[in-house]
């Protein structure tokens, strides 16, 4: 059980997807002007990441990994090169299903997430999470922990950043620096701060 918590904390703070692996930056910069929308997007990322990483883990272990098809008598087949196409299709499908389910059973949440949910299909934090899971040979339970932790870490990063950015609007920056340039520099400082957490999990 402690290793479950270990992986969650590590993925959330030490190896934060947004600030250490620099994944999902486009969405991170585009959808962080208000804390409210950042919160919605953060929730969507947690949900999608926690669902897709374990599903992709199962798909990889059952179908794609070298020798994974042994259960069908096809032990010598190695389909791991198909992981990009397969993962992106699994992600697109799960996002679509989640979208439909939320629309039917949780219309309030669905409205809060708005257009951000479908956009997550092309968010590199989501695909990156699945690819990192393969690279690290996580088991099913570990991948569940990794999905949850990395999603929560990304959400944490964007919510902090959106809060900072709401304050930044009031400050008087030099012409070309105003807006995006400043956003980058602030993210840099935030990333520096997260580097300080690197000793959190041994």
């Amino acid at each position: 059980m402690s290793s479950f918590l270990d992986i969650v904390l590590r993925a959330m703070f030490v190896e934060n997807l947004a600030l250490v692996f620099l994944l999902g930056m486009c969405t991170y910069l585009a959808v962080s002007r208000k804390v409210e929308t950042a919160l919605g997007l953060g929730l969507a990322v947690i949900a999608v990441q926690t669902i897709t990483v374990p599903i992709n883990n199962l798909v990889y272990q059952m179908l794609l990994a070298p020798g994974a098809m042994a259960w069908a008598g096809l032990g010598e087949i190695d389909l791991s090169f198909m992981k990009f196409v397969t993962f992106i299709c699994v992600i697109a499908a799960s996002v679509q299903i989640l979208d439909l389910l939320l629309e039917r059973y949780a219309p309030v949440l669905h409205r809060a997430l708005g257009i951000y949910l479908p956009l997550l299909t092309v968010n590199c934090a989501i695909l990156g999470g699945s690819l990192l899971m393969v690279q690290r040979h996580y088991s099913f339970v570990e991948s569940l922990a990794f999905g949850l932790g990395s999603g929560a870490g990304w959400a944490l990063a964007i919510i902090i950043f959106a809060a900072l950015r709401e304050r930044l609007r009031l400050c008087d920056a030099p012409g070309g620096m105003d807006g995006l340039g400043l956003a980058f520099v602030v993210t840099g400082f935030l990333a520096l701060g997260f580097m300080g957490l690197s000793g959190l999990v041994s």
Partner: protein
Amino acid sequence: MNFFKYLSDPLINENPVMVQILGLCSALAVSRSMEPALIMAMSVIAVLVFSNVVISLLRSVIPRSIRLILEVIIIASAVIVVDELIKTFAVEVSEYLSVFVGLIITNCIILGRAEAFALGHGPLDSFADALGNGLGYAFVILIVSAARELLGAGSLFNVNLLPLLEDGGWYRPNQLMLYAPSAFFLIGFLIWGVRSMHIFQVNKSTHRLPRHL
């Protein structure tokens, strides 16, 4: 005539990274030293040119409702080929690039150009646009990685230029340049420079910058 305009515009004025703010993840993450950055830039150019031309050729047969999934599959096929090539011919770099080659699939420059350009233009123009945007991306990633490698390790392409303190020279490498935050600072300052240039341009009305970003 348009060919060269499509080719040259994205280099600086409409630069995908600094002005359109697309494809940031890999530009930030693989810019620690020049060799992987160059290979990454070449991969992105290859995938971008391939997908833009193919999507432009297929633009009249792709049904609108399922175009996104088709585009993603075309891009993903190109990425698989590039990934296998890198794994074969540049083993060390492929370990360093790790997941980032696969993440070219979700690089927004590629899907963005397919949606915004290739679906509405012929294959030759799409080729020019893809090449221009690819070179614009390469330009930024090479500048950033040159700065990071030079200041962080005193070398370019693994060739030592500034004699390091530990080898009896005078240069003490700036360790910060090897970590993620420095990429944010450098790209932030690059954006500052490019946007200041835009602001002081006489011909202001032709460019409307996305100020809200």
